[in-house]
């Protein structure tokens, strides 16, 4: 009953939060309801569950989406590792060292935040085509990696700057070299921010529809978002399996969410992140 201990003080706030919570969650429940319907049931009743439940929709859906899920896991995984490694190195360097042309180089990174992604959409497509990477996994991974690098380098730099200088000075006095300090001091300290960078990259790549739409044409390389949209209505839309597919598609993220949530929340709520 500890959950109810402070209710006397908290109730107005709890009611406000409940309001937000219900609106946020109702659509998700709707997805679960729809995922066990046939088209006939769906056409007759959108908003409430209907009997019998057709769990076989999940079997059909799984066959359709498992390839997309594997692809997406592979793409996002590669991008996350790449972004985490590169952005922590660059962020660390920009945060803790002075060197010639630092301002200029940092500007090369940071001013890209101002370049709208759509400006480069068409030329990037041509570049990827000329590099013979169209319809190849690399054609997704590399542009995602470079695009993700911009914001995450900035996040990592902010975080490393917020760490106390004393820690590093102490390490220098103990005779640690720069790579050692980076690997054994800075990285462990930055774990929450690394989780943040990883999860933002994950969300961005998992949800990106447009770039795969223009670069991937072969079904076997399609990531999830594209696969689900492009094949939602081949000949006719079968809503039950479609929604079941979305539910299955959410599972990998759900698992990651359960494991990395604490780090992710503490990384972003550390207060170091601001303009």
């Amino acid at each position: 009953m500890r959950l109810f201990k402070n209710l006397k003080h908290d109730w107005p706030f709890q009611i406000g939060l409940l309001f937000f919570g219900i609106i946020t969650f109702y659509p998700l429940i709707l997805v679960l309801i729809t995922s066990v319907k046939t088209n006939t049931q769906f056409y007759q009743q959108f908003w409430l569950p209907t009997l019998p439940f057709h769990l076989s929709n999940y079997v059909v859906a799984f066959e359709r989406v498992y390839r997309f899920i594997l692809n997406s896991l592979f793409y996002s995984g590669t991008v996350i590792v790449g972004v985490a490694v590169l952005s922590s190195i660059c962020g660390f360097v920009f945060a803790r060292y002075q060197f010639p042309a630092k301002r200029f180089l940092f500007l090369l990174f940071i001013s890209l935040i101002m370049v709208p992604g759509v400006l480069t959409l068409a030329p990037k497509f041509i570049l990827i085509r000329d590099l013979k990477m169209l319809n190849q996994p690399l054609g997704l991974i590399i542009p995602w990696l470079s695009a993700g690098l911009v914001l995450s380098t900035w996040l990592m730099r902010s975080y490393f700057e917020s760490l106390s200088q004393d820690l590093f000075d102490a390490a220098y006095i103990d005779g640690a070299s720069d790579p050692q300090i980076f690997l054994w001091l800075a990285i462990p300290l930055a774990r929450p921010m690394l989780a943040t960078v990883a999860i933002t990259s994950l969300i961005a790549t998992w949800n990106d529809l447009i770039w795969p739409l223009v670069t991937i044409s072969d079904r076997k390389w399609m990531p999830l978002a594209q696969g689900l949209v492009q094949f939602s209505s081949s000949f006719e839309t079968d809503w039950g399996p479609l929604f079941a597919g979305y539910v299955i598609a959410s599972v990998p993220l759900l698992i990651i969410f359960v494991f990395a949530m604490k780090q992710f929340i503490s990384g972003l709520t550390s207060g170091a992140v601001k303009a």
Partner: protein
Amino acid sequence: MKPIRLFALLGISLFYFLAYSQEKTTIYFAPGVYLPTTPTETNPNPPTALTSLIEEYEAAHPDINIELVEIPESVSSDTWRVTVFQGENEPHILPNNYIRVWQESINDWYMPLNTYITQPNPYIPEGTPGHEKWQDSIPEVVWNTTVDSNGNQYLVTVDAVAVGLFFNKDFLEKEGLSTDFSIPTSLWSDWASMIKDMESLSSAGYEPLALSMSTATPFNYNWIDGVTLTSVYRDSIEQMFKPDSAWHAMSQEEGACAIQNQLMSAKDPQFSDFIDILSAFEPYWIEGYPSATPDEAYRLFISGEVPFLLANAAVDMARVLRDAEFNFGVSYFPPITGSTSQYASNVDTSYLVGGFTAGYTVSERAEREGVSDQVVDFLMYLTAQPQWSKVVTDAPRAVPTLLGLDVPPALEPLTAFLDLPIRAFKDPDPRLTKRYGEEHRRLMQEFFTGQITKEQLLDNEDRLMQREAAKVIAENSWTCDF
């Protein structure tokens, strides 16, 4: 490096080289509407004939591997085409519409089939047309329709497509409307009586006609657009054709030159009538048609809420047969006659949407990869009467045009439509350019939803037509002196 390692390395590379060079030839084949699907609760028995035919072919040709390609239908099918052709990843065999192929052949996307179609097709048994000469298996009128202005045949057209207005018999009878055909192809003898019926349904509180005009899936609207425009220009269309040609679907060149030579303009009184006819029809379309998907339109018809559905009749027939819990029929648009527009007073027929528009092209990729012969061989196999009849009987989604094939019984009602003359103005996109099609539809949407007046619409339409015609003429260096 030690010699032994070097040899090992060489050996491994040789092994891979041999293994690779013995790899099967893969033919990527996009079957379009015949694509096999997995069974679901809603559709428990999808067609399987194509799958088994392909298995038989692969068994007989161990060096060939057939990969089926699904073409995305929903968002962005145009994007998909651009992407596959730019990325050199187009399927070897692609379902195609001849008008579109004419428009795209300037990019060298397709392989001319001229030499192949004069050869014998070994998969057609003796005594059946096409055994000596492949092209004999398809009526001559089809070849005459699909030939490009450069004389090339890019398509093997095995099917004809017909669109139609599905109607809910029970619904109409309950509302006291007749469900008997007045003319062989339609419930109504002319356009005005169709509008009258729609009006009576509408004043009884119903939304009469389900269709989609979303700019992502604008097919339904495109059909109406082309039929109406053809009817009001009936008297001047023949001047727009190249000399000595019979009535046909206008090519991009003829369309652009008609505008250039001032045979047609948005300032014409005919064009104004065209707009009026459409805007008198539009109130009877379902609420939300500018963003509705074809699937949402279908749902409204099948649930019995809306009595009429405009659809690709052949493709949707099986679906309606499976889902409808009421009696239904399929009608066609009635003719637009003098009672609707003075410029249509010589019109005595409605015009066909579709026709010989369901062919297969062989992409340039086949030549690029040096597998033209294998690809064409598979196409010969598939489109030979014994095989194709299995495909269309199993999945009756289009009316077969191959000689010696019977029309599947379910599609029998549609054959009368196919005898109608083709609409001269096709969809807005192949008429001029894709940009024209898109902007034209958006202008029409703006007009229908009251964002612009008719004068503004005509002004913009005029500018748009002039610009796109000039652009496409310049790109192709047409002279327009016919």
